């Protein structure tokens, strides 16, 4: 379970691209190949792009600056926890 006090920070090596189904996360830095994830949630992709482009990778700040419902926030925190496990985000 995540808490609003947790700070989610995108790691520098992550690149994000929008796609029709949501988007792609690509992390380079692992020898000659990066890791790759297909994200089928446009909302999550937009949040990550906002965090990267407007908040210097601080995804928590992106959530705070947006008007998500509590239900949406909880879903996003769960998704962010998953991205922490996959190595795209670290917790500060």
């Amino acid at each position: 379970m995540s808490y609003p006090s947790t700070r989610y920070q995108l790691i520098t090596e992550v690149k994000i691209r929008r796609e029709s189904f949501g988007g792609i996360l690509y992390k380079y830095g692992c020898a000659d190949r990066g890791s790759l994830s297909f994200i089928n949630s446009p909302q999550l992709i937009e949040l990550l792009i906002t965090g990267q482009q407007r908040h210097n990778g601080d995804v928590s700040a992106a959530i705070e600056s947006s008007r998500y419902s509590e239900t949406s926030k909880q879903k996003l925190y769960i998704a962010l926890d998953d991205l922490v496990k996959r190595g795209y985000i670290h917790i500060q």
Partner: protein
Amino acid sequence: MAELVRFMERPGRSPGQKVGAVHPMALAAMQQTGEMVPQKNERGSQRFLQGGLSAPITVTWEITAACNIACVHCLSSSGRRRPRELKTEQALALVDELADMQVFQIHFGGGEPFIYPGIWQVLERCTIRGLVMCISTNGTLITAERARRLKQFDPLYFQVSLDGGTPQTNDSIRGKGVFNRALRGLEFLAAENHSLTVNSVLTRFSFHELDQLYEIATSFNARLRVTRLRPSGRGQDVWADLHPTKEQYSEFTNWLMAHPDVLTADSFFHLNAFGTKLAGLDMCGAATATCCICPEGEVYPCAFFQAPEFEAGNLHVHSFREIWQNSTLFDFYRKMGGGACSGCGQYNVCHGGCPATKWFVHQKLSIKDPECVLQRG
């Protein structure tokens, strides 16, 4: 205007207009594969790839055909520079286009990329545009000075090719003296702490030297990357003699499981049919996750599928974006069915194997992969 100067032959086009007619042999081969097979595993990445991405994830760019060595299995039959190779200014425009499309990574190959006159400007432009770079090199032209100079580009990864753990095996494929020259290149790159992999094409003869290759890579603080031999280019002439046996593939699968840090560039997904799921994608990414740009601007589904019949377009005539998004050949390619593999219980884990291998061995795409591990013999 600048774009017109760079690519004088490109005609004016309407957005969305289809690019190129499909060669009749390619069309027939693709149509014979039937309808796309519905995926049982709805959680797999293939459902996203099959839908078509806005841009490739990785582009292999064979930037020149010029090479100072002549490997017997060279998939692009490299040697001499070709007449219509992209000029540096055109190459820089292409980097900009790939960056605008948000391609994540360019994998430079050839030929030998360090023979391309504009390579330093191209790498500089990639760095400025934030593209991840990987250079596949034979290592023989790497000097201490070049290794130092390359430190200015970031992120940049190197693959240095060794096709055997001994000079005898490697040099029988890559040429006399190349083993030691490649090791020297590795030394220079390692001395500058470049991120390295030792790239090795698995053959019937190098199979016995996998442990030695692993040790060599480790000694340079590099990772070993093993890839599949394809019968394309000069590889067509030697494939029958060099491609691993089914027994070797079986042992190799176990070896990979025991060496999880070894990279495979996802090229052994056909071995998933043994029943052991290997790391990485479980399907071919040609024309969906990747494609190949060849020295004279030809665009193919992947680096292994450089068959004239499967040219999706040419950069002297169309932009890369036009080719990726509107190529008739890519349209058909992305909708191919499973052919003879459609009813196979393992289709979900290997997706019928490598189309390029099927084409170059039998000129068909509807057949099983010639190295299908479930076939007898």
